[in-house]
């Protein structure tokens, strides 16, 4: 029969492994609506070998103009979970720069989220940082999680 201390050690080990499994599950799903679930499970921060908390870096890619607003809202939501967020609007100009989009974009900036686009109109009109496809690729390599939204 397993001793109590061994049982406790085994349970601790299982609990310690859960964040990694959640992270992998997230990567497998990598779909819309998952970030909030995963972040709330507590993997938005990881500690390095010295115990220093490191914020996760998340890249949100938005390709479909119809998803631009929801992508922005999700990026903003992830910032609330103490993650570094980089939002990329690909190809198209912002389809509907209404008050709601502008407000949320302002919140993203205030919370130190970053927004990039390979469309120069977004850079000139709305203050996005320009990133070519090659630069986007480089930034994605540095991100912990990439979410094609």
């Amino acid at each position, binding site marked *: 029969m397993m001793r109590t201390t061994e049982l406790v050690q085994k349970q601790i080990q299982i609990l310690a492994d859960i964040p990694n499994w959640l992270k*992998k599950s997230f*990567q*497998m*799903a*990598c*779909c819309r609506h998952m970030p909030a679930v995963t972040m709330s499970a507590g993997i938005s921060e990881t500690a390095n070998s010295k115990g220093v908390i490191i914020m996760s870096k998340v890249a949100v*890619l938005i*390709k479909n103009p119809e998803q631009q607003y929801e992508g922005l809202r999700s990026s903003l939501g992830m910032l609330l979970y103490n993650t570094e967020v980089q939002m990329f609007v*690909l*190809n198209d100009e912002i389809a509907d720069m209404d008050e709601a989009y502008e407000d949320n974009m302002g919140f993203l900036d205030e919370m130190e989220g970053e927004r990039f686009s390979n469309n120069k109109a977004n850079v000139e009109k709305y203050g996005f940082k320009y990133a070519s*496809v*090659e630069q*986007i*690729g*480089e930034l*994605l*390599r540095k991100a912990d999680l*990439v979410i*094609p939204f």
Partner: protein
Amino acid sequence: MKILHIFRAEPDETVKDIVVSTTNGDKSKTVELYSGEIDWSRLVDDIFSHDKVICWW
């Protein structure tokens, strides 16, 4: 860094270009879910054996 790219639909030119630019001479792998038979068990192994997984549109 080993990156696993999973394509749920056929990638357009932008996605193809981004995928190329993310692979910096590394051993990356692509899996197309939209064509042919999928070896799901191998896919799960691949997910766990790669450093990063990107599941595209």
